């Protein structure tokens, strides 16, 4: 539904040229919710603006629903934008228009009849739970209500695609959850294809089917959300994941960690398991078969897009040959093992 083909964007020219996007290839299938995540300044904002050509790519092609956006005349582009809604971090509602008139705006721009506008606006306000707010002004609304108005407005022209530019970044966690639920509902009920950019893993985890990770203008990961959360391919991906899961080893432990095993050390491991391996009785197996003790320092189980993801940081306590064998056993299971370091035995 949305496809970017070798899209690059460079600001300025000559020696002062700043590349914002470099050769980005991206495909969002019909009906999918695709999340692009990245740090501030990574190029997320430029990326989403290149889709509806608020920013014109320096090179590369953008197709929406089979139409080449980059090859259109100004008038064709305006028509194409009617089929592609967009919502923003700061809502961008017109302060001097009521809720009703804000939602009506894109229809007015298309010169729809008053009757069509009324029908469409009323049903959208109903759907977004704003029917009783129709005659209020944006200044009277909360952040979450404003974003609902913006969503209703973006859907007024019955687009096939919705672009979300950090749509929940200005909202508190509860409101974020309710806006995400609304986006998911729209996606399921209307079959709308959604491309969103965010710096919050929570957003990706909650509603996205597929995720792209952008770093210095390049798309460095592009995976199913379940795969990304269980096995990110890049260091940045792992950093995002660990920050999100808050699964960094405790500081006191980090200070004691040594990179190489010594005379009297225990390995500290981070285990990431997903799918079937979650239910493996891992700890008791290690204890029984290798005669070691396993001290769990941190653990977490998350459910992401129907897949269960378990994370654990554990210290394997035993003699050197026992722990080495235990590690080998761990490797044989269907899980990821990362030795974080070694700590001196305290016994």
């Amino acid at each position, binding site marked *: 539904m949305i496809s970017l083909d070798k899209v690059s964007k460079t600001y300025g020219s000559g020696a002062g040229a700043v590349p914002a996007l470099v050769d980005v290839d991206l495909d969002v299938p019909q009906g999918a919710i695709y999340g692009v995540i990245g740090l501030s300044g990574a190029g997320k904002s430029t990326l989403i603006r290149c889709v509806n050509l608020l920013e014109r790519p320096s090179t590369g092609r953008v197709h929406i629903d089979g139409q080449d956006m980059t090859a259109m005349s100004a008038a064709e*582009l305006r028509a194409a934008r*009617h089929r592609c809604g967009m919502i923003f971090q700061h809502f*961008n509602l017109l*302060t*001097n228009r009521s809720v009703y008139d804000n939602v009506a705006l894109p229809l007015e*721009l298309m010169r729809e009849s008053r009757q069509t506008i009324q029908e469409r606006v009323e049903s959208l306000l109903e759907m977004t739970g704003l029917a009783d707010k129709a005659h209020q*002004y944006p200044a009277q609304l909360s952040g979450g209500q404003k974003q609902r108005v913006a969503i209703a407005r973006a859907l007024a*022209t019955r687009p096939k695609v919705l*672009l979300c530019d950090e749509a929940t970044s200005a909202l508190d966690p509860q409101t974020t959850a309710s806006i995400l639920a609304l986006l998911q509902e729209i996606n399921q009920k209307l079959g709308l294809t959604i491309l969103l950019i965010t710096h919050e893993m929570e957003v990706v985890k909650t509603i996205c089917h597929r995720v792209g990770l952008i770093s210095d203008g390049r798309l460095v990961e592009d995976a199913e959300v379940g795969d990304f959360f269980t096995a990110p391919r890049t260091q940045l991906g792992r950093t995002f994941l660990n920050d999100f899961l808050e699964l960094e080893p405790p500081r006191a432990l980090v200070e004691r960690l040594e990179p190489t095993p010594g005379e009297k050390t225990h390995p500290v491991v981070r285990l990431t398991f997903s799918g079937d391996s979650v239910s493996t009785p891992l700890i008791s197996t290690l204890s029984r078969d290798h005669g070691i003790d396993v001290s769990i320092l941190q653990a977490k189980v998350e459910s992401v897009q129907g897949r269960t993801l378990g994370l654990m940081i554990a210290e394997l306590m035993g003699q050197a040959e026992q722990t080495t064998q235990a590690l080998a056993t761990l490797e044989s299971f269907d899980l990821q093992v990362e030795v974080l370091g070694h700590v001196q035995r305290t016994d």
Partner: protein
Amino acid sequence: MSSALIDLVWESTLETLYMVAVSGIIAALLGIPLGILLYVTRPRQILAQPVAHRVLGLVTNIGRSIPFIILLVAIIPFTRMIVGSSIGTNAAAVPLTIAAIPFVARLVEGALNEVPPGLVEAAQSMGATPMQIVMKVLLPEARGGIINGLTITVVALVSYSAMAGAVGGGGLGDLGIRYGYNRFNPTVMLITVVVLVVMVQVFQSLGDYLVRKSDHK
């Protein structure tokens, strides 16, 4: 206070109001579009035209930098062409209008500049034409700022119109100079000043009221 004096003050008040109204309305009609042009032709704006923008800006600045009393006499031939005479209230309204147009334009440009760029971006994402962006986004969103600018212009025009006496335009300022100053009549001077103060108060309050009423920020 003699009835002759009251008549004189009344007549002068009407002359001032007439000059301010005529020049204010025409200046708004011409200055608002000029202000819009100044804004939309800015670099990175919806109709970016850097060269046109610079030319318009230069002309506007020239208009604003000429002292009013010089403008008043400098454009006498032009005034004669427009109203058929170089003296009288109508003749004074011409330079007042000319002076107010760039003034309005800059205030309108400033008001438009206060509209968050995100609103224009949102309208573009909806497929709005530049004209639609101006009519449905920029002007309505800048309405408060524009009314505020027009209020400032009207108050400035009241003050400028005091110089209209130089071309026989009459008005309160002229009354104050001729009767109050030249004839050493402090009563007349005081009365004209009081009437002008009240007039400015009324215009400012009216403007503030309209801003409050039109703005939902």
